[in-house]
């Protein structure tokens, strides 16, 4: 085992970097935003990404998977962070594909995984209900009734919820909010009567949806995995997503930092380049230090997703907490060090700031993950 990439993963990273630099630079996200695009992503870009095989990266090989592991996929997410490419990769592949692969029946897997690998089906995870992430707090009710399942309740912050072909809904089939036991997963067609989807556009110009489930009736086959027992598999798949988000944040942070250092080297005030001021040098050096520590933490979390050791959850929380906290500090510094131009919409730094803030809150910020880490370490 190693924290470094192997040749195959390195090749994937390099090809992702080159592809995204030409096909989806930050300007592409700006264009999506400016034209008020309904979907919030570019289907043509997604089609090309599918041809490159990214959606298949971590799927089982029987379903067309590439076997480059989460270290490989994480390297792709880091590059996505560098150009802010808007893709359905996380909700569809990591969450949807992950939950189906881990908990779905053979029939479900055989039907959906090849479509996911080919980029032909989009998924979303309907999990969040409260202002802050905590999967144990789910209250959306599920109960069985004459051979059917019924769902009732509201979800928010459903990433790509407005474009998904299928949703996986986390519901409470027993117990009360705060308990791990009593959660179940359901596969829901958004066209089912009683499902109401409202798109919300977020500060990062990406999309999430609010979804209302009003006495929605599902057939018995909609249940994924065992009833009441979904927490363990949900949290394990969320950990993969958290590790990938930490990798994306690493890319966001690194790109913004490199642009900032370049600016410090060229911007002249008081007849000298401002990068010669020690006050700025030390702040930049501190960011470099934190980025190096984050890079190791992210690599270890991704490695743990591939190795599935018993420290995996701890390592993910370390990576997601550090990535979330550093993204706040590093992006605020990037704006501040750019001075006035830093708060203009013309400069791209603002896009990185906004994206980082959404990713910070996605599946747990620093405070959430320190709390989780403390529990895992027994205090």
């Amino acid at each position, binding site marked *: 085992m*190693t*924290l*470094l990439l192997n040749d195959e993963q390195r090749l994937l990273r390099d090809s992702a970097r080159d592809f995204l630099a030409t096909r989806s630079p930050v300007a592409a996200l700006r264009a999506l935003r400016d034209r008020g695009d309904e979907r919030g992503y570019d289907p043509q870009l997604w089609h090309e990404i599918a041809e490159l095989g990214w959606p298949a990266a971590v799927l089982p090989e029987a379903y067309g998977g590439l076997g480059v592991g989460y270290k490989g996929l994480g390297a792709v997410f880091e590059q996505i962070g560098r150009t802010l490419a808007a893709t359905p990769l996380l909700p569809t592949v990591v969450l949807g594909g992950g939950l189906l692969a881990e908990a779905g029946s053979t029939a479900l897997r055989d039907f959906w995984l090849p479509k996911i690998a080919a980029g032909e089906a989009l998924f979303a995870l309907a999990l969040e209900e409260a202002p802050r992430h905590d999967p144990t707090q789910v209250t959306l009710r599920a109960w069985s009734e004459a051979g059917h399942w019924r769902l009732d309740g509201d979800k928010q912050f459903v990433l790509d919820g407005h474009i998904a072909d299928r949703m996986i809904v986390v519901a409470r089939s027993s117990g009360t909010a705060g308990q791990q036991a009593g959660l179940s997963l359901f596969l829901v067609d958004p066209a089912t009567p009683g499902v109401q989807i409202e798109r919300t556009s977020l500060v990062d110009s990406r999309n999430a949806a609010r979804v209302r489930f009003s006495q929605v009736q599902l057939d018995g086959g909609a249940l994924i995995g065992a009833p009441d027992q979904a927490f363990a598999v949900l949290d394990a798949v969320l950990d993969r997503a958290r590790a990938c988000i930490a990798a994306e944040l690493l890319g966001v942070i690194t790109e913004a930092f490199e642009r900032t*250092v370049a600016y*410090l*080297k060229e911007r002249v005030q008081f007849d*000298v*380049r401002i*990068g*010669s001021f*020690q006050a*700025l*040098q*030390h702040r*930049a*050096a*501190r960011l*470099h*230090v934190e980025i*190096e*520590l*984050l*890079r*190791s*933490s992210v*690599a*270890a979390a991704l490695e743990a997703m591939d190795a599935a050791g018993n420290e995996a959850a*701890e*390592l993910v*929380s*370390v990576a997601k*907490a*550090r990535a979330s906290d550093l993204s706040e500090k590093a992006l605020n510094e990037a704006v501040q060090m750019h001075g006035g131009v830093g708060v203009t919409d013309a400069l791209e730094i603002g896009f990185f700031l906004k994206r980082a803030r959404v990713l910070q809150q996605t599946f747990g910020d620093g*405070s959430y993950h*320190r*709390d989780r*880490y*403390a529990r895992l*370490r*027994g*205090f």
Partner: protein
Amino acid sequence: MSGSDTFRAEVRQWLEANCPPSMRMPVKTDQDMVWGGSRITFHSADQRLWFERMRDRGWLVPGWPKAYGGGGLEPRELRILEKEMRALGCRQPQYNLGIWMLGPVLLEFGTEPQKLEHLVPMARGEVRWCQGFSEPSAGSDLASLRTAAVRDGEDFVITGQKIWTSHGDKADWMYALVRTDPQAKKQQGISFILLDMKTPGIIVRPLGLISGKSEFCEVFFDAVRVPARHVIGGVNQGWRVAKKLLEHERAAMSTLSSGAAPSFDMLTIAKSYLDAAGPVWRDRVAAALMDQQAFSLTMRRLQELMLAREDASGVSSIMKLVQTEQESAKHELLQQLMGQRALSLDSEGFTPEELAVCRFWLYTKSYTIAGGSSEIQLNIIARHVLGLPT
């Protein structure tokens, strides 16, 4: 089995057979550490046994060439030995500044006679070294040092003062920076010289610190005669030797937790004080543990980069800064977590751990100053890694 696997198995077998069980317990007090040198003191028979067995195998300095008394291990083998020692919890058989810092520069800059004269006894743990770099007016600006060495026949005559000399009162020899050309630009008039601490004219005085007694000393030189053959790397060429040595010092200070000071297990202590401290402190303890984990993962990544012969400069540049700041912050946290309990250095009515935490809270303040202060480390990162202009 690959060559590495065979070597790993041999090493493990040898360590299992030769490292006494009591030498596999964590270092808790000064008595658990053996400092090499002419006045070497063992506090137990096992300490002596472990020291002698490692010495006879050349493993006090496993990575040095056999010709100079070392173990002749390749870098890959060295890493295996270190890893196996960590896995078994083996203590360092001895501590010696010479081995960590002087040895590597002697191997690089020393003449053959100099290497034979100094490396061989060092490899046997017979000479204890101290470092004479800092002066009262030459701290972070080390190159402004003024201790003068004037040529007189076959000797240099040294007059001046050094400060912050760790273990100066216990060392056999000193490696020092002296000014041999007062007219030259400051970096260019400096020589790197070795001197016997028994030479007449040397006075050593221990320094009291905020944490109480310390290993730091002041050293005064009054017309001390040192043979000119002890200059390393050429007269007035000492700065480049020193710069290299400081790199080794930074590297040594990057691994403080592996032995130079007693190390408290934060989690164990935290658990017994957290109930009285509340949720804010739980969050802070979790953050500090995450910091430690991120550091050790970075240490692992650094080693992997070096083994893969990839560029590791951006990573290695941060290690001294991070390790010393984390050690300092860790003791800051423990001291405050203990509340009213860690407010005494020496009184009755406190546990040994509480007294020790108070002492080390104060002592670790020196970590971020010694060996190039944190500010100097940030300068280095800004200029040499980020390439920011001067």
